[in-house]
């Protein structure tokens, strides 16, 4: 590697960002708007309604997917009810050129990014590993291996540095990566490596941790004795705690973290303090490990309700809008209900298609073997249907 390749990477000095202990909140659970000298957003009523709309649709996706799973149309569903503000807020903070590295529950961020929800559902139906084009939509494939996306996000950010797309001052050119992960993920060795690595290389990456309080049955206290955002200190980057049920605060905090990364300021760790209202997945039974009282307390902090309360109080949410949104939400649900059963199973032989980029004789031979057996079975079935025997 030449010095010039390393040059731009080292050029951006780390800017020590202020450390915050308290939680950033711009819209409290009663729908009251607060102002924060350091983190604030100035959104137009139309933009606010846009956030509201996206959260409503995201929740609809969740309930429809759950119903589809119950009807046997999906193999599994990882719900995100309660995390709408975190995901929509962070998803909206991302710019076109940024790359998002999600986990497996970040449907709201994908919706905000314009990913077709049927592509998300096709993964949970078992038709593919997620039908979206990661390059085109700027969203890495979902990963089921906890924390495994974090190091690739750092590497991507290091690539961005090497491409000179950091700190140029051109808002359409400066780029960042953002990794989404849960509270449980912070326990993985790879998570520690990712934080440290990003900090050492001053990589333009934001670590967006949705602390939804539970990793399947284990409370966050089983993952970490200190508040998660304080992990950032040890890795040498700012850690910010944000109310994860407050879409305005999430948007603001993630936006400034991404700005900092794009500008060459280095990584930030954001802990979005939220709650998973439903089961971990449709195969989980949260009543075995979680008290109803805890869920009830969080219901009071609902992210959609509080934005609705605020917008209504401001006179920015009229009946006409609500009616139109209800209709849109219904049409959206119908599209999912009809779209999922219509998803085509892949051709069995297609499983051989992408194992290797270049021909692999072993795989080609096995594909031939598979196809021969497959055609034979078809012929047998045909013969049986016409009275023949094998």
């Amino acid at each position: 590697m030449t010095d010039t390749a390393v040059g731009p990477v080292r050029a951006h000095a780390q800017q020590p960002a202020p450390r915050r202990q308290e939680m950033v909140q711009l819209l409290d659970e009663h729908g009251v708007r607060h102002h924060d000298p350091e983190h604030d957003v100035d959104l137009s009523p139309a933009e606010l309604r846009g956030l509201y709309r996206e959260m409503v649709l995201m929740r609809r996706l969740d309930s429809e997917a759950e119903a589809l799973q119950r009807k046997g149309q999906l193999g599994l569903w990882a719900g995100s009810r309660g995390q709408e503000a975190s995901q929509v807020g962070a998803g909206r903070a991302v710019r076109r050129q940024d790359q998002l590295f999600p986990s497996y529950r970040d449907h709201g961020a994908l919706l905000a990014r314009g990913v077709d929800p049927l592509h998300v559902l096709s993964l949970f139906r078992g038709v593919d590993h997620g039908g979206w084009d990661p390059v085109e939509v700027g969203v890495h494939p979902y990963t089921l291996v906890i924390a495994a996306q974090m190091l690739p996000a750092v590497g991507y950010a290091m690539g961005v540095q090497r491409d000179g797309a950091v700190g140029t001052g051109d808002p359409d050119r400066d780029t960042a990566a953002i990794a989404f992960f849960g509270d449980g993920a912070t326990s993985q060795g790879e998570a520690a490596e990712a934080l440290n690595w990003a900090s050492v290389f001053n990589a333009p990456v934001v670590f967006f941790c949705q602390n939804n309080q539970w990793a399947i049955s284990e409370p966050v206290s089983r993952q970490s004795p200190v508040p998660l955002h304080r992990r950032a200190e040890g890795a040498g980057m700012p850690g910010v705690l944000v109310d994860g049920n407050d879409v305005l605060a999430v948007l603001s905090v993630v936006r400034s973290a991404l700005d900092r990364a794009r500008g060459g300021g280095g990584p930030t760790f954001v802990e979005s303090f939220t709650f998973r209202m439903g089961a971990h997945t449709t195969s989980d039974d949260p009543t075995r490990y979680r008290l109803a009282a805890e869920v009830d307390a969080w219901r009071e902090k609902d992210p959609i309700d509080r934005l609705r309360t605020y917008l209504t109080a401001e006179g920015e949410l009229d009946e006409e809008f609500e009616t139109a949104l209800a209709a849109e939400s219904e049409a959206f649900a119908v599209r999912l209900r009809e779209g999922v059963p219509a998803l085509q199973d892949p051709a069995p032989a297609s499983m051989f298609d992408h194992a290797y980029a270049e021909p692999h004789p072993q795989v080609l031979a096995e594909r031939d073997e598979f196809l021969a057996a497959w055609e034979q079975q078809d012929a047998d079935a045909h013969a049986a249907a016409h009275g023949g025997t094998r």
Partner: protein
Amino acid sequence: METMAIGRAINAGLRAAMDRDPRVLLMGEDIGALGGVFRVTDGLQKDFGEDRVIDTPLAEAGIVGTAIGMALRGYRPVCEMQFNGFVFPAFNQITTQLAKLRARSRGRLSVPVVLRIPSGGGIGSVEHHSESPEVLFAHTAGLRVVAPSTPHDAYWMVQQSIASADPVLFLEPERRYWQKGEVDTDLGPGQVTPLHRARVLRPGTDATLVAYGPTTQLALDAAAAAAQDGTELEVVDLRSISPLDVDTVAESVRRTGRLVTVSEAPTFHGPMAELAARIQESCFYSLEAPVKRVGGWHLPYPVARVEEHYLPSVDRVLDAVEQSLAA
């Protein structure tokens, strides 16, 4: 005799081992109040407490690494990997530490750790829940790799694994957790089949089918189907992949003259390649046909909607038998 499902039998085996030896403890993600995602440890934390049934942080390298340390202090940790694909974050700890400590210390250190790994697919799941990683570990000297296929074996083999002075990877046939069968819990010493001995489950004369773990039932099903056409297949359950009881298989092959192996793991460089090579060495003059292998393809495990085309089926087994008989 008691009737139980495989998952339940492992639970009972763990309970028996914990009752017998206070040094036995369980470690894993969600194994406490939830009882594990497959409920295999159901009720154990309630009865043995949080210090012996430990809900760990979500960190596989951490689970295996700390289990090694506890074993060095005289405990006998039994670790649960939540799903097969998630053993890989712990791969370094397993292959460089767990497997090697005994050799590195010239036998001074013992690490009697058991890793329970739900293994194989067929449950319609998402990526990294359906892998068969056994060959990676079988190839690693210092580890023992076993795979029960019946409730009776599940009950006894888990206890034998815990009693072993070596690290044992205990592969649980994920899609057979709910398969029921009889368990004789009253056997005395010497009445239980040794951990690494293969067993003939069905006698036959025309060819030998060898399988282990999730495909053993498949081999039995195929033998039952073949019997209707008058072909008598002998079915051998390997039970252990490392070490491999080649003698039991060789004896069977000398009687039948033909061998077809069945595994979910890919055949390419797979566990049955080793068996085939050894049988060809030891039974060359008894073989009437080349050894045939039926298994997974050399592919990342495919999505659920096509996994039935990946997994060996009765048809694929019978086709291989037909080819063997025709040779």
